[in-house]
């Protein structure tokens, strides 16, 4: 699904990722952990072609194609979905209209027939009912005036509608209460059909308990320094980064 070799990424004048290697096979769930500023968010933003991230070196292959040849829109339509740590508010764009436009953009890219409004509405309402999401969100403008939790739920709804192949979850559980984390986990698990893959960033063990990762990676200084299974996340939860030789710094959280 995804193969990253010797990746160097710069934001402005700072080299954030320094020789990162990672391989994700179809159906695998990977968790990315690390102190603030270690490069977790930069990695998922790079995979989603964020304009801040400049790839200086390395290869990025997705479904055996060179990801660097695809722009942000193409990557999304090829099945890469990044849930934002801080989803953007856009007043004046109705959420339902946005979701329908995004879905039909993907269908057009895949040369499928556009979904009409009635079918789309029915489909979305089934999803909101199944995953206990408020229909009210659909009527409002995109993330405008949403609480932190509502924004994350809206990211989840987009994810469910677009059914991506590679889910990049950048702290999708932050700002959510315990019940909401359970809903998010349930929704993500429902998408895991053995073909879809997940790369998730989280600080909460509760999320990892419910979406059990196949691999847990620790990122430090722009590269993966340790890889283990779920037990590594448990160890981190119990002992913290300090006791495995890493300090929580005051570096930029978004890096």
């Amino acid at each position: 699904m995804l193969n990253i070799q010797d990746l160097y990424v710069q934001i402005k004048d700072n080299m954030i990722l320094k020789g990162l290697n990672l391989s994700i096979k179809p159906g695998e769930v990977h968790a990315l952990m690390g102190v603030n500023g270690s490069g977790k968010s930069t990695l998922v933003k790079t995979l989603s072609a964020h304009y801040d991230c400049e790839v200086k070196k390395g290869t990025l292959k997705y479904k055996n194609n060179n990801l660097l040849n695809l722009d942000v829109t193409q990557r999304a339509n090829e099945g890469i979905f990044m849930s934002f740590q801080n989803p953007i508010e856009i007043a004046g764009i109705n959420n339902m209209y946005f979701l329908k436009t995004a879905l039909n953009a993907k269908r057009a890219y895949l040369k499928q027939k556009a979904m009409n409004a009635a079918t789309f509405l029915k489909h979305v309402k089934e999803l909101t009912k199944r995953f206990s999401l408020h229909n009210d969100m659909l009527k409002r403008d995109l993330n405008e005036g949403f609480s932190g939790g509502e924004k994350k739920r809206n990211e989840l709804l987009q994810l469910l509608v677009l059914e991506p192949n590679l889910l990049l979850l950048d702290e999708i559980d932050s700002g959510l209460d315990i019940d909401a984390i359970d809903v998010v986990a349930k929704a993500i698990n429902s998408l895991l059909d053995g073909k879809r893959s997940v790369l998730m960033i989280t600080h909460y063990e509760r999320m990892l308990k419910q979406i059990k990762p196949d691999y847990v990676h620790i990122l430090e200084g722009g590269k993966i320094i340790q890889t283990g299974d779920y037990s590594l996340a448990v160890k981190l939860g119990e002992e913290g980064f300090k006791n495995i030789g890493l300090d929580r710094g005051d570096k930029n959280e978004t890096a």
Partner: protein
Amino acid sequence: MKLLDFEFNKHIELPSKNDESYKKFDFTRLYSNTYKVKPTQNQSAKQYDYLSHKDFYILFLHNSIQETGKSTLCSHIQYHTINKESFDSKNTWTQLAQSFIELDNCLHITKTLDKPLLIINTFSLSNSLLCPSLNIKLDNNCTADILEVFITNNKGACFLNVNRVFNLAKNATLDYSKSENLKHEDIIVFNYSSSFLNTSSLVINSIDSHCAQILNHWDIVLNSVDSIITINALSHIRANENVANIASITHNNINTSSHIQIKHILRDQTKALFEVKTKVNKSALFSKVIQSSTATLLSNETTINANPKLEIYTDNLEAKHSATCGNIDEEQLYYLQSRGITREKAEEMLIESLENEIFLKIKNPLCQSYLLWFKGKTHV
């Protein structure tokens, strides 16, 4: 005949670049076109029947003459013509229109309207200069929603110099919205002026787009206690079109309020002028003044000249003014694209979102949805 060559110009000095307000205004097109003053060509208005709507009272004016068969008014909406009244205005365009017309058209609303009034102005005259004028009067305690639209279907450039005078009596509230669908080469000048009595409120929503040249001129005097003027305007232009929003607001009494918010969306080689001057006199204690110009520049070749000006002679008031310009928000664009939407479509959605902010300020849902339809954004 060119505008500068008309006889009425003997007493009226048309604006030029020497005038402070018009320094950045491009007069080339306005003064170089040739127009007929008393056009004889008069096509039927039948082609405009589609503009009527059963949920509105309708005042249908074709080439400034009422089409009684197409108008559906009620007993408390009186439309009539009277002998021209002298009207003191410093605005040259208003003076020009006054010198041009022989009778004043008056719209008198005597009671609160149970549904909005739609004024449809259609023009089928070619290469012509027209000065459609209308005095809109609301009696005490009246509330009304008025939506006014202007449509041309002519060959050659048309110049419309539109005069609107609002007279609001005590406790009257008027929500007035206007827009136009003109031929690309047409030029339109709107002259709005108003006088207020106690606690009356006027909201003007102005949606302008796709016209060679658009000039909005607001001349408002707040003479009475508690009177309020709100102007929400959207100017979305492209190619080599240009737009000017010029306002002169004077606060003369206590607790008066003026709020002007103008959004510009500028493409290609367009030019925009925002020239708003609010004067708060000593007698206008506790006044509230807001001036705001925002411009989204969608091209490197477009320009805006924004001058929000405050002239304050009293100590106790609340006033703020701002003028901002910038491009489409890159992070918003990225967010939409990250969901598979193309850059072009994402830009279109974001521009629409800017427009929607002004459309949503139209309180009456019928007026709002009609205007969205009129501007080709949705279906009623």
